[in-house]
């Protein structure tokens, strides 16, 4: 177990999140069970007040979670220096059984919290607050995922063994790896990249046709295919090395931290894409969500495409 100050900080903040999250959870349960917008009872008035507290807590957690996530990545990088074999965050994530699940869970939770906040903002615009029960019910479910993440994070940091050797991204992301990674690589770049651009075309199509649900679904798929192609294809052009598939290394200074930009664009584009489908709102807002989503997704595609194109222009060949 490493107890560096960074890890300690993350654990302390997690403790605070857990504490406040539980408060929000208790309130959510109460509100979910007893909320009655038409009642004029004392209970209802109390619930109204409590819903503000719950909302404030969720906003607070999310506001800290985002920079903390970045900090988490920095921390992984820092730990990789003391963990034999790890050269970037990927090695640290892979050092325990929990690392990968934790990472995916963290990202899912980011989407969930962001979604809750958008739902909440929409809810309070209406006099009868129509989505209150829905949003608190949703939070009840989200809470378990959230606590799961905190517990998992604690376990993961506790389980990192300094004595044990870990693999570097070179082995984790190679086609010879024993896991699902290998199967993905087996599909072949041409197919994967084609799916990627096809998906983007679908997004564009549904954007212009303004088909909400199809647009959202296309965005959901886009998350998956983007990350896959990023690892198998586009990443190699960022590194200019056909065997370097690491999803973490371009977060480092060697690559001008471009990784952060890439992931930010992807998150924002797909998140707003999901919002158009899954949040009921007025036409003006919906249009705004469409535009934001499409803009970020397009920027993402352009940014990623530039790497292989520029490489080809500079060198005359593909990798």
């Amino acid at each position: 177990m490493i107890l560096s100050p960074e890890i300690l900080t993350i654990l302390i903040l997690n403790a605070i999140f857990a504490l406040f999250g539980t408060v929000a959870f208790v309130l959510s349960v109460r509100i979910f069970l007893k909320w009655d917008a038409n009642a004029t009872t004392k209970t209802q008035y109390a619930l109204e007040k409590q819903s503000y507290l719950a909302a404030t807590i969720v906003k607070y957690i999310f506001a800290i979670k985002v920079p903390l996530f970045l900090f988490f990545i920095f921390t992984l990088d820092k730990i990789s220096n003391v963990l034999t074999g790890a050269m970037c965050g990927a090695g640290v994530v892979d050092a325990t059984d929990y690392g990968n699940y934790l990472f995916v869970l963290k990202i899912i939770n980011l989407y969930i919290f962001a979604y809750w906040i958008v739902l909440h903002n929409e809810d309070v615009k209406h006099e009868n607050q129509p989505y209150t029960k829905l949003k608190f019910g949703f939070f009840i479910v989200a809470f378990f995922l959230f606590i799961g993440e905190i517990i998992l994070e604690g376990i993961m940091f506790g389980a990192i063994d300094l004595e044990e050797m870990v693999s570097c991204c070179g082995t984790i992301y190679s086609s010879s790896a024993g896991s699902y990674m290998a199967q993905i690589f087996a599909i072949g770049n041409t197919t994967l990249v084609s799916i990627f651009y096809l998906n983007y075309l679908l997004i564009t199509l549904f954007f212009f046709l303004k088909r909400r649900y199809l647009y959202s679904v296309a965005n959901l798929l886009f998350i998956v295919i983007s990350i896959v192609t990023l690892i198998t294809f586009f990443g190699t052009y960022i590194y200019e090395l056909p065997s370097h598939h690491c999803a973490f290394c371009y977060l480092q200074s060697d690559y001008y931290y471009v990784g952060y930009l890439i992931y930010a664009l992807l998150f924002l584009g797909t998140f707003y894409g999901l919002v158009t489908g899954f949040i009921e709102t007025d036409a003006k807002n919906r249009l705004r969500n469409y535009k934001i989503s499409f803009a970020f997704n397009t920027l993402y595609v352009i940014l990623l495409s530039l790497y292989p194109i520029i490489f080809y222009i500079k060198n005359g060949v593909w990798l």
Partner: protein
Amino acid sequence: MKSKINFYLIEYAINALLRQRSKNIFIVVVFTLLTALLSSIFYITNSIKYELDSTVEALPQIIVQNMKAGRHYDINVDRVDDILSINGVSDATARVWGYYYFEHAGVYFTLVGVDQFETQYKESLAKIVKSFDFDANSSMVVGQGVQRSMEQNYYKEYLNFVKPDGSMKRVALGGVFDAQTTLESNDVIVMSKEDVREIFDMSQESATDIVVTVANPEEISTIASKIKLLNPNARVITNEDLRVSYQNIFNYKSGVFLALFIIALFTFFVIIYDKASGLSSEEKREIGILKAIGWRVEDVLKEKFYESAIVSVFAYVMGVMFALFFVYVLQAPLLREIFVGFSDLKPTFELPFIFDVQTLFLVFFLSVPIYVAATIIPSWRVATLDADEVIR
């Protein structure tokens, strides 16, 4: 809407803070002190780590000592040849040195013996050997700390060393080397190996230890184990071992400190919560008025949040800057003693200025979010007060 940031609200928040001046000044001061303390600790540890790393660079790669009865004992000089025969060893030198207790001042001097015709194992020594002349007449070159000690005890041009048998050896002062040569130069006296041997009553075949230089730094640990095999009763220390042992003591101290800090933080949390909850009727009235003239609960919450943010960020920035001043300008009196407890590292070295963005983030995460968290519930309580009852 102009921009997303409501400057009117920020202005109001600042005003509200100033209206509760004494309470808020107290909070800001406490918070600044906490952040300053925390930042100082991190700055000091960062600087020492850096200093440590650079020092370790200068340390010999492998030191071989002879052990007898669990204690360090003189080693035989002919072991040098054995070691030189190992593949990968580029150089092995027998060192003659020791600690001499200067009774008058109650301090220890480090006596380092040099042989003019040998390649020195340390560059700083090479410089000294080049610039000064150790001739047949015993003379020595000393560090500034030694010179000071000597002068304080009225020894100006020579020093009388007391040998183990009680007799004295007079060694003339040949020169003083400047402080830039080494970290440890302060209490060091350089003289010929012969003189050192004489003062410590060591035979010609004895040496204090042997330092080994390895051609390929990656092979240090392998060669160290080979040396150990050849000399089972020897203690073989690599520079990595030294670094790790310093680091461990160091990390241990940081860990203890951090644990204490958490307790302080918790106390702080409780104090803030309490302070924020204790609303004067004045404050309650103000909030009541705001709601009566049309502020929503969210608006009041936002304003309270701005208040927390302003206080905590302000205190954070102040704390970080005070710490910078405290550590790098004042050189962290008192505090650095906690971390610098090694006899080898003399206290007069200067903490180098290391700027680390991650440290800033670390301190930020350990302070601002915690303060804001402490104010969430009290702010909410205020914001949801029934305006009706307050205005009566």
